[in-house]
């Protein structure tokens, strides 16, 4: 496998991902359901982008597409200069693990693992040594303010704390892009804003941050907002 460019590019004018005429549809019986229609998106390295739109407009689908989890029906997608269409399942797994950090609305922690172990999961799949991954996971737990909770199970943590673990896990392999799908959707406003603060801090440190949200406040914070409506981009720019 070709060496993926891992050094974050700080110049915001360099596109880290380019989507052209991307479409996604589902065949439901005889009806074809168009979820994404002719999406043209370019996102630069280090950018902070908000994706907004009504429920069912295709925001999550677009985010998953960006994160190489979902496969487009047609169109083109370059991620960091590589044509994603040409990659096989193993390559896509590797990209997800190494360069993308997912933060989900429902946290998606593995219940039988404790805080550090959850953070270690992506490192394990990248083949980090036991010692290295344990050390790094601990550091990340401290960073998100859970240094004293490292042996706790997800069920013993509050929603806000679980989402912090998820963020720490997303940072495990120092990804280029952080993708957050309604990260504050399941949280009260206070812990929601704490989570958002952590994410924005990461952006300030140079990460490319893409957040799906219903919160206009977040959109105001972001450098750019992409608004989806019925699978189409209705607005793409600064507010």
């Amino acid at each position, binding site marked *: 496998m070709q060496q993926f460019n891992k050094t974050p590019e700080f110049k915001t004018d360099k596109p880290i991902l380019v989507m052209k005429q991307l479409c996604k549809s589902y065949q439901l019986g005889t009806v074809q359901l168009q979820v994404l229609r002719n999406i043209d998106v370019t996102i630069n390295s280090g950018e902070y982008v908000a994706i907004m739109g009504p429920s069912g407009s295709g925001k999550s689908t677009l985010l998953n597409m960006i994160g190489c*989890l979902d496969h487009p029906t047609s169109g083109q997608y370059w991620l960091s200069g590589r044509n994603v269409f040409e990659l096989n399942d193993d390559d896509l797994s590797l990209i997800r693990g190494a360069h993308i950090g997912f933060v989900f609305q429902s946290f998606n922690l593995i219940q*039988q693992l404790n805080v550090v172990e959850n953070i270690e999961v992506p490192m394990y799949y990248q083949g980090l040594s036991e010692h290295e991954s344990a050390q790094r996971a601990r550091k990340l737990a401290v960073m998100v303010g859970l240094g004293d909770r490292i042996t706790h199970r997800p069920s013993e943590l509050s929603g806000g704390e679980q989402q912090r673990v998820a963020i720490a896990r997303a940072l495990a392999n120092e990804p280029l892009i952080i993708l957050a799908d309604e990260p504050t959707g399941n949280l009260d406003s206070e812990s929601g804003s704490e989570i958002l603060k952590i994410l924005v801090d990461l952006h300030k440190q140079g990460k490319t941050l893409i957040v799906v949200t219903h919160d206009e406040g977040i959109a105001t914070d972001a450098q750019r907002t992409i608004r989806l409506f019925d699978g189409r981009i209705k607005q793409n720019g600064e507010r």
Partner: protein
Amino acid sequence: MFTFRLKRTVKLGIKSLWMHRLRSTLTTSGIIFGVSSVIAMLAIGEGASQHAQEQIARLGSCNIIIKTVEPPEEEQAGGRERVMHEYGLTYADAERFHNSIPNVEVVVPNRLLAQRAWYRNRKVAAEVIGTVPWFPDVSTVRLIQGRFLSSIDMHYKQSVCVLDENVVSELFAFDDALYQDIKIATDYYRVVGIVTQQAIVSDLQTFDNQAPAAPGQGGANVGNIYIPLTTIKDRFGEISIEFSGSSGAKIEKVELHEIIVKVGSIEEVLPTRDILETLLDRFHKQSDYQVVVPLELLRQAERTKMIFSIVLGSIAAISLLVGGIGIMNIMLATVSERTREIGIRRALGAKKRDIIVQFLSETLILTLAGGILGIILGSSIPYFVTYFGHMPTVITTSSLILAFGISAIVGITFGLYPAYRAANMDPIESLRHE
């Protein structure tokens, strides 16, 4: 690196299995019982066959045994009642075997009589064997005290006897048996020697109906008493009278009850058997003899053992199969229960292979744990079978390896499909799964 991965995978597997302790235990029990039944069945089969083989080997693999049998009624010459019925092997037969077949090294003619023996007020039912001094050459008896019968005993028809251990222990509680006189029928015999033979085999027939008892071994008798062949002829004669109900007495004359022939090597056994049979056929008008070849019995026992093992083994294998299906069932349930976890792992960089390894290793941990517990349980069952059921059992290392190997194969076979299903789930679908 690899060991770290293995360690992590095993640790994770155990952790996941531990979350569902009861389920894991129940699932494993299928394998435990499967493996233990494989081991127990093979141990019982092996025990039975080794036992039988020992018995047969005791008959001597270079021996050919010719036994007197009562010919079928219609072949009997003359009328039925009050006529002396003469049949069986003769001294002439023994003579002919010795003189006309060069391969024959030893010929031992025997007369057998079931009799009671007394010492003071103690009594024992024994097989009295009238034999020759070279009897030990064709037998596995071993002298432990005194001497065996001699040619002088033969010549002078001496009243001497050699006892086997079992008879000694029945007759002589406190006294030293050697040089004591015991009473058989109406006469006294002096004990000149004591021999030993490994445990008496009375259940050989249960394994193979064709197999005869070892030389001079009667069914219900406690043990053997050896006296000179000349003496037995002199004291007991060759005629026996048996009163059978209203039909009157049955009078029989039999010279020898068996002749044991020993050849130089195993290769000569079967050719010599053929010559013996031709010879016997020529001089016996009625079929009043039976030729038994221990070597053939041995081979037959080996075949029987193989069939026995295959049958028992397949029964056990079926139970393992059922255990395997149980495991597959549970693993499929586990996979669908953990769909979301699989989605998460895929999103975090797990390859399909990683997912396969994860679930396959869980199955393997279950089956191998089941295999180990099954080996422990399976090794203890034969012990109880031997202890309470008085059946010989032999646990072979190869049966342990086989059982463990089968459980590993079951694990891989039945774990592969659930693992494959898990790996091929669409990450998006999995993540959406509640």
